[in-house]
């Protein structure tokens, strides 16, 4: 009964470091998404994927990269971390039913 699994749940990075947030889903969903949520704000779309091998930018892609080599996995890469990337990151997947996304529990990232 795993659903969408994100790791790590918490991470502190120094400015300029790089890291990858992992996301795995076991529901065989084609659509996957990465969102970030800043305090008092809604979720902002970073990148999304409509299937293995296909990715596209969302509203706030700068400073991030993604890949989708399998249906299950959708890692988010942060290169040269900056304080502006301090946020809670959510991965989500969808079977395609309009808008019904299944979210992971989130990864809280702090860049100091």
């Amino acid at each position: 009964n795993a659903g969408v699994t994100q790791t790590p749940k918490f991470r502190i990075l120094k400015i300029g470091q790089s890291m990858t947030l992992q996301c795995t889903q076991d529901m065989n969903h084609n659509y996957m998404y990465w969102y970030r949520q800043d305090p008092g704000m809604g979720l902002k779309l970073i990148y999304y994927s409509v299937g293995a091998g296909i990715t596209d930018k969302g509203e706030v892609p700068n400073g991030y990269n993604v890949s989708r080599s399998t249906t299950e996995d959708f890692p988010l890469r942060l290169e040269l971390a900056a304080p502006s990337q301090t946020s809670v990151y959510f991965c989500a997947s969808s079977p395609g039913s309009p808008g019904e996304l299944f979210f992971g529990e989130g990864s809280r990232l702090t860049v100091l």
Partner: protein
Amino acid sequence: DQQVKQNSPSLSVQEGRISILNCDYTNSMFDYFLWYKKYPAEGPTFLISISSIKDKNEDGRFTVFLNKSAKHLSLHIVPSQPGDSAVYFCAAIRDYKLSFGAGTTVTVRA
């Protein structure tokens, strides 16, 4: 450019009464509108949706109303229960991409 807006950051309601959450949008091309519920330290969970061609959808205690001419939707929760205390996000979808509002924190008082 925020396309989905929730102008009330918080709402306090007594248990058993109606909770009404409001949402405005600017893009007339949205296909579906949705409400998500979020508890602390958890991801959002889908609550209810409505197609842009309908004006009402009901699911148990939850009803969503859509007024396309006003670009406005609302969520009614009747009766409100303590477990409804959470952050509620309004969202709208076009081309498989969801745009979210900033959320409304609902507190249900005993």
